[in-house]
């Protein structure tokens, strides 16, 4: 296996752009990544694209306009973890010697998405979804258990959202992001108690791209070598298959595996980006990533350790809660965010002296929390 390095990152603006196509957003991100890497499009030996609920070959439509042609462009689906799975596929191919340099690209336009017109169908063979389970309500059942076992309150969950928005306003890519208060979050429209609408991510349009390559290739273009030390994607037991309803089995396993591959532990991490589609989810992930002992997720949140400037800032980009969530772009974007911190280029939200970072994504089918996919990427300087 060869070592894999990050050569370039790029993203489009994140927001509501009903007038822009997915290809247009993807093109912006891909172009930005090429610029950042300082290489010409013809250098790319593969593009691993991803889009959800889109037309056939929509991933491939992103890149011809920037001069990428005549190479492999597979489209990879893994629900919300699709973008991260594209990075994983590219990482494997660079590590295995299939390609020396390639791009992973995630783009989604929720405004143009089929999802906008048609709610995703329930899984017929899941009794839960036929009996009224929805995605927010699955996480609400989990939040209830946190309230029962750790004394969490709705204000704690609101605090996650407030923290995300505080970071988001510092991120130029987060368009239309405003600070919110705990009271605003608690009093916003109830979705599935205790989850209110400001504890849920918005549907957003956006794209992100990353260019990975071998060490030899990277050294020709940059002196800032950032290694993608581990890339793990596992599918396994989801939230509702767990006895305590406060852990995602595949998330825990994937993290364990990634720490092993990268040769680092949770206490080596300087910065973490994670899937916070619902505020209460963040607490589960703290524990699954072993940022704190099991059962102490709420305490970790309350300590402020995961806020900007804390011991281990989580979602310094603003996360899905403030940036919104174009499902496949998010999984690539949050890896790019970690890269920014390791390069010391994250501006006002920079984590000082960041050397090791982790980006995590969770993918669930539209209505199913029985099986979930977890993607973990660990980056080191």
């Amino acid at each position, binding site marked *: 296996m060869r070592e894999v390095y990050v050569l370039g990152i790029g993203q489009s603006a994140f927001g509501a752009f009903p007038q822009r196509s997915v290809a247009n957003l993807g093109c912006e991100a891909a172009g930005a990544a090429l610029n950042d890497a300082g290489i010409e499009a013809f250098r790319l030996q593969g593009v691993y694209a991803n889009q959800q609920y889109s037309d056939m070959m929509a991933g491939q439509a992103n890149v011809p306009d920037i001069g990428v042609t005549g190479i492999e462009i597979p489209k990879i689906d893994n629900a919300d973890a699709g973008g991260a799975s594209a990075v994983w596929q590219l990482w494997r191919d660079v590590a295995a010697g299939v390609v020396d340099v390639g791009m992973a690209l995630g783009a989604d336009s929720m405004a143009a998405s089929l999802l906008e017109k048609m709610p995703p169908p329930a899984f017929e063979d899941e009794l*839960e979804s036929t009996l009224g389970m929805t995605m927010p309500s699955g996480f609400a059942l989990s939040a209830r*258990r946190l309230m029962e076992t750790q004394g969490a309150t709705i204000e704690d969950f609101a605090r996650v959202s407030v923290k995300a928005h505080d970071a988001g306003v510092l991120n130029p890519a987060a368009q239309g992001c405003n600070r919110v208060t705990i009271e605003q979050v608690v009093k916003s429209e109830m979705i599935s108690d205790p989850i209110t609408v400001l504890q849920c991510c918005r549907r957003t349009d956006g794209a992100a791209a990353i260019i990975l390559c071998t060490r030899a290739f990277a050294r020709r273009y940059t002196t800032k070598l950032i290694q993608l030390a581990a890339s793990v994607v596992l599918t396994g037991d989801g939230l509702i298959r767990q006895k305590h309803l406060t852990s995602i089995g595949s998330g825990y396993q994937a993290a364990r595996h990634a720490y092993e591959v990268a040769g680092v532990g949770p206490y080596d991490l300087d910065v973490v980006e994670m899937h916070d589609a619902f505020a209460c989810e963040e607490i589960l992930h703290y524990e699954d990533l072993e940022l704190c002992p099991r059962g102490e997720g709420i305490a970790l949140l309350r300590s402020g350790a995961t806020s900007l400037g804390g011991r281990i800032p989580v979602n310094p980009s603003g996360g899905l809660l403030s940036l919104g969530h174009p499902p496949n772009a998010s999984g690539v974007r949050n890896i790019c965010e970690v890269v920014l911190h390791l390069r010391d280029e994250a501006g006002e939200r920079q984590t000082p002296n960041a050397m090791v970072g982790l980006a995590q994504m969770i993918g669930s089918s539209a209505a199913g929390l029985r099986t979930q996919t977890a993607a973990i990427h660990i980056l080191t300087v």
Partner: protein
Amino acid sequence: MSGSRIEMRLGGTGGQGLLLSAKILADALAAGGKRVAQSQTYEPTSRGGFCNADLVISDAEVDFPLATAIDQLVLLDRLAVKPSWPLLKPGALVIADTRLCPELPAGDYRRYHLPLSRTALELGSERVTNIVALGALVALSGICGREQVEQAVRAEAPRGFLDLNVDALKAGYGLLTQEDGLANSPEPPARPLRDGIYRGAALVAGICQNCKAAYFPKPELCVNCHGDDIKEIELGAECVLFSFTTVHTEAAHSGLPYSIGYVDFPEGVRVFGPLDVEDPSNLRVGMPLRLEIGLMQHDGAGASIIGHRFVAT
């Protein structure tokens, strides 16, 4: 349009041989002196996507070749119900497969729920479901003579499968003598949310005899230890609330707000279901609840469905 115009649709999914059935019937009708226009609709997926084969039959030349008001409809998949239903004439004949298309919307039509695919399987191959359906359609509609259809089947059947196809056609005729009247009831009986999960007023769960893991519904295989010795147990009515939420906003479900949750049974099984309580603010983790099995308020496509829920004791 001329009074003798009859429209037929064979609806199902790609790969079921609907086009072949339609062609056989068109040949048989043409041999009997009728004028027939045949058309089809299908999705880009060659197998598994929704697919229709339509016939417009007339004594004179067919004035418009596409189906506009269907007199006779054969349904071999639930996918085909939705696109065909708006075109259905009042009083139309509807033949549906009991397994592949178990639910039909209510309405003014003659319903025949027949075990077409099961009959084909019993004959040796599910692939002749289309021919069984053809037999049932000819027998019920009397649209053309049985000899003509049999001749057309003999002409069209793939080599080596002639006997199977002729047997399938005859089995299709035979279904009517067995099931007529019985299957033609105006309202289907209520059916459980899923077969085999309820017995009387109890839930049927399974306990792995190897590792003692407990499941509802009873699985074929223990996902914990991969053992296949799963003992069936019936759960009592008493249970305890493990977690709950009240759903206020969700486009896909009606009757908002509604409460749902997980309960724990003393047998070690956790079960999800609706919580039937007057005031959701009284819900507490750990409170005792009782299982009820009965008609569910929200059902799929007109058929009554039996489901479970948990009520305060």
